[in-house]
């Protein structure tokens, strides 16, 4: 007989499962964490390599000559920007036209749900200017995009200068098989969102924009350039986009290949890779780089202007120029050559980049870990939830010992109701957490001496904390649930959490893994029998909000800019407000996910803890 159909073996298996459940869960958890930490160990990673045959090797001759002239153009741009107090639309249009591009502008406006204190904007009105370089001999079916943001102050002037210099150089070449669109967007991500929505004729975020007069065909790849100094010491590649989506690894491979060919220092997450992977400091460096990528991906926000392209299946990355204290400086001509080489290779593409990985983690620019290698770390954590669910199922299925004499009728009928009530109430709280902060900001501002942003954030925290008081109130107000009904609720909650985390990890592995790290121990070990005060404290520490607080501190530590507690707290509040804004402006899903699904799930466990 088979293993599961033989009753003896089945009983043995079941008893093994129930006896060893807690130890196996602990082992799985430690194995999952160890696997994740082991991902950064260099022998476990693979070297990056170009997968796309059409792009081949870095076999081009880059001949861009006009770096200094590009910097001069950047200075002109800066002067006109100061004079216009924003985007110098007329000057840009005239300059692009003199370089032989077809120039168009797009106006957009947007009222944010509440003022953005980081970037100091509330009513945003702006103009995007873009010029299309038509391919001399090709039909206008495909396009590439090079963009530079028009930032307030002195930032990114050189980026616009290099963009215009490249436009002039590219215009003189005959080998372009795709149109190249040179875009200067205002108000960084908001302008980019308006342009992309106008280009693809979608309107997902309720922004107001004028339709685009000129178009170039389906965009195959895009690069966004951020350059704020005349010389750089290194170039940083930013890959993480909206909702943790990453571009195809071939784009990173292309960048790295050209960096090596031209001899520019290239970094990812701002950290230069080291050669000593077998030493402790080398390994911890790789772990730090990987953790930075994980945290950036988990936050679900686009970390560069490229982040919004990914949603339209356009592979995009941001290249940032960093000027630090190093002796060897790279000038604008070299940066122009690197971009020229990359665009010549992207020109050779016949189809969209699809040969390489879409899901990966990079402990350094030359090594990567693919989804097949990192997913087991999450799988081990999800296994704990499944083991717990099995354990509960077995306990519920076997008849209880009759020394307590509970009335048997109460076991079956309030089963559904005892589960449904906490579910409904938790989700209603989640809905409250999602909707109340923005809707009640006016009322909050009237009654309390806080700004709108603070009102929103503090309302969110208030609703969150109010949810903690729920079990008390619901249990008093409604019926008294039976003693063992918590098992059914826990079973449902554990399975719900497993499905939720599984789906999240598939789309955004980092977010799923970080939530799993904190929520799975909660889910596994909470019962009404554990000591209430201690476990309540631990549960609050492991709740999503506190996870976010710790992540903020950890993120600052990893970037080598540690903050004091007060600064960290202010940063935390701004992170919450940015999260809500990202959701309203670009459609980021982290805030609704946490508010509507993760938080109610955590509340279910909180209910179980306080079960009477």
């Amino acid at each position, binding site marked *: 007989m088979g293993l599961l159909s033989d009753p003896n073996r089945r009983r043995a298996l079941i008893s093994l499962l129930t006896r060893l459940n807690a130890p196996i869960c602990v082992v799985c958890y430690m194995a999952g964490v160890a696997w994740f930490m082991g991902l950064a160990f260099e022998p476990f990673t693979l070297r990056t390599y170009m997968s796309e045959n059409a792009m081949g090797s870095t076999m081009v001759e880059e001949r861009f000559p006009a770096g200094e002239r590009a910097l001069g153009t950047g200075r002109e741009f800066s002067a006109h920007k100061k004079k216009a107090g924003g985007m110098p639309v007329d000057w840009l249009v005239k300059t692009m036209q003199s370089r032989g591009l077809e120039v168009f502008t797009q106006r957009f406006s947007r009222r944010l749900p509440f003022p953005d204190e980081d970037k100091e904007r509330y009513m945003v009105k702006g103009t995007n200017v873009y010029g299309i370089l038509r391919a001399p001999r090709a039909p206008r079916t495909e396009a590439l995009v090079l963009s530079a943001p028009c930032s307030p102050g002195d930032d990114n002037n050189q980026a616009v200068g290099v963009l215009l210099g490249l436009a002039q150089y590219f215009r003189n070449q*005959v*080998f372009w098989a795709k149109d190249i669109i040179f875009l200067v967007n205002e108000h960084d991500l908001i302008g980019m969102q308006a342009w992309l929505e106008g280009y693809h004729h979608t309107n997902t975020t309720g922004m107001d924009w004028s339709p685009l007069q000129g178009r170039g065909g389906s965009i195959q790849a895009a690069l966004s350039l951020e350059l704020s100094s005349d010389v750089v010491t290194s170039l940083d590649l930013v890959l993480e986009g909206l909702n943790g989506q990453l571009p195809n690894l071939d784009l990173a491979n292309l960048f790295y290949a050209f960096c090596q060919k031209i001899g520019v220092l290239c970094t990812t997450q701002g950290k230069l890779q080291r050669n000593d992977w077998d030493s402790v400091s080398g390994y911890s460096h790789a772990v730090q780089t990987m953790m930075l990528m994980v945290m950036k991906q988990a936050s679900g926000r686009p970390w560069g202007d490229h982040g919004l392209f990914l949603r339209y299946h356009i592979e995009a990355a941001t290249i940032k120029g960093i000027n630090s204290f190093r002796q060897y400086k790279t000038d604008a001509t070299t940066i122009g050559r690197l971009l020229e080489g990359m665009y010549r290779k992207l020109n050779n593409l016949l189809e969209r980049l699809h040969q390489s990985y879409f899901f990966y983690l990079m402990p350094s620019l030359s090594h990567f870990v693919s989804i097949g290698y990192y997913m087991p770390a999450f799988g081990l954590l999800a296994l704990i939830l499944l083991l717990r669910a099995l354990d509960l199922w077995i306990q519920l299925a076997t008849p209880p010992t009759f020394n307590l004499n509970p009335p048997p009728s109460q076991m079956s009928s309030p089963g559904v109701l005892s589960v449904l009530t906490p579910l409904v109430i938790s989700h209603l709280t989640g809905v409250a957490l999602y909707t109340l902060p923005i809707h009640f900001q006016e009322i909050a501002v009237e009654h309390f001496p806080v700004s709108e942003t603070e009102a929103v954030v503090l309302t969110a925290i208030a609703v969150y904390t109010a949810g903690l008081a729920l079990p008390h109130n619901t249990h008093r107000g409604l019926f008294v649930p039976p003693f063992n009904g918590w098992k059914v609720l826990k079973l449902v909650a554990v399975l719900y959490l497993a499905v939720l985390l599984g789906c999240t990890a598939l789309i955004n592995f980092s977010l799923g893994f970080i939530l799993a790290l904190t929520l799975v121990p909660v889910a596994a070990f909470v019962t009404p029998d554990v000591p209430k005060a201690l476990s309540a404290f631990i549960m609050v520490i492991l709740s999503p909000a506190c996870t976010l607080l710790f992540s903020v501190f950890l993120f600052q530590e990893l970037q080598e800019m540690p903050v004091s507690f007060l600064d960290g707290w202010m940063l935390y509040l701004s992170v919450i407000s940015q999260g809500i804004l990202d959701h309203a402006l670009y459609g980021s899903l982290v805030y609704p996910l946490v508010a509507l699904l993760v938080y109610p799930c955590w509340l279910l466990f909180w209910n179980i803890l306080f079960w009477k």
Partner: protein
Amino acid sequence: MQLQLFVIILFLFSPLVPQENAGQFFSSGHTNNWAVLVCTSRFWFNYRHVANTLSVYRSVKRLGIPDSHIVLMLADDMACNHRNPKPATVFSHKNMELNVYGDDVEVDYRGYEVTVENFLRVLTGRLPPSTPRSKRLLSDDRSNILIYLTGHGGNGFLKFQDSEEISNVELADAFEQMWQKRRYNELLFIIDTCQGASMYERFYSPNLMALASSQVGEDSLSHQPDLAIGVHLMDRYTFYLLEFLEDIHPSSKANMNDLFKVCPKSQCVSTPGHRTDLFLRDPGSALITDFFGSVRKVEITMETINLTEPIQQVEQNFVNEERQKETYSYVDQLPVSEIIHQKPKQKDWHPPDGFILGLWTLILLVFFKTYGMKHLKHIF
């Protein structure tokens, strides 16, 4: 051409020709040369395959095979590709020394016309009647054919156009069909792909010689990238083959054994291979120009030939026999007059139908009369 034919006829008919010269004269057995040059890959990054084929085309033309005897099949247009920084050119040397596209290239099969089916039809001659002469391989049993294939291949197959393959068995069968239809005298097959030797493993027809750029399990490598164009320009084997062919001129006596030595492993990284067991002559006696060139054998003679006698003989023949002059006219493609005035076809005479029916009724009635009327009800 006429003079040469004339001289040959004279050698045949005149009793003054020493016999040994004739033996040497016709040692190769072929009277015309054909070349089928195929590039099977498309896309810009396969520039080198087109450059390979065009380089062989140039050499073959230089050595004398005219465009009318070359079937050139190029699967993609590199010269006019949007990504070509030097439009209308295809270079085979870096620093753009040699433009093999030129302005007199004649491509017979271009783009999507280069398919396995078309290639096999060209080889076997099974083309629809509307195919123009430039797309046909009009070889006969005295033709020496050079077939050059290049592209991406594997163990036992060659990839055409990213969507189909030709296998070595198909190719061997196509050559057998050519042999049975007497479409070649001798055939030289050169293939420059990865694992190219697998393509000639299955040949079984006589008078085939094959060369490949790499053995089974080896990859053929490309030679030199050009940074200005951004692609590899040639494959190694063809590059060294061309270097070798540059030294061949129409009267060169270099033979096949020299060709086998082209591109040793030190230069090619892969091991070129060849197959001569099906070739009936000794490869040392087969000249390079037997396949790569279209060499007319001309022997200058200082002897005077008496022309009068043979001509008179022929004329006498004409005078003695009756002149049978036929008037020729075009056959009607649509014989309208016959269709309109259709006469019934002449058949053998049969008795009229009614007669046969009456005969059978009579037989039946006699039968039933004899054996009783009750059987009749089975019929009616």
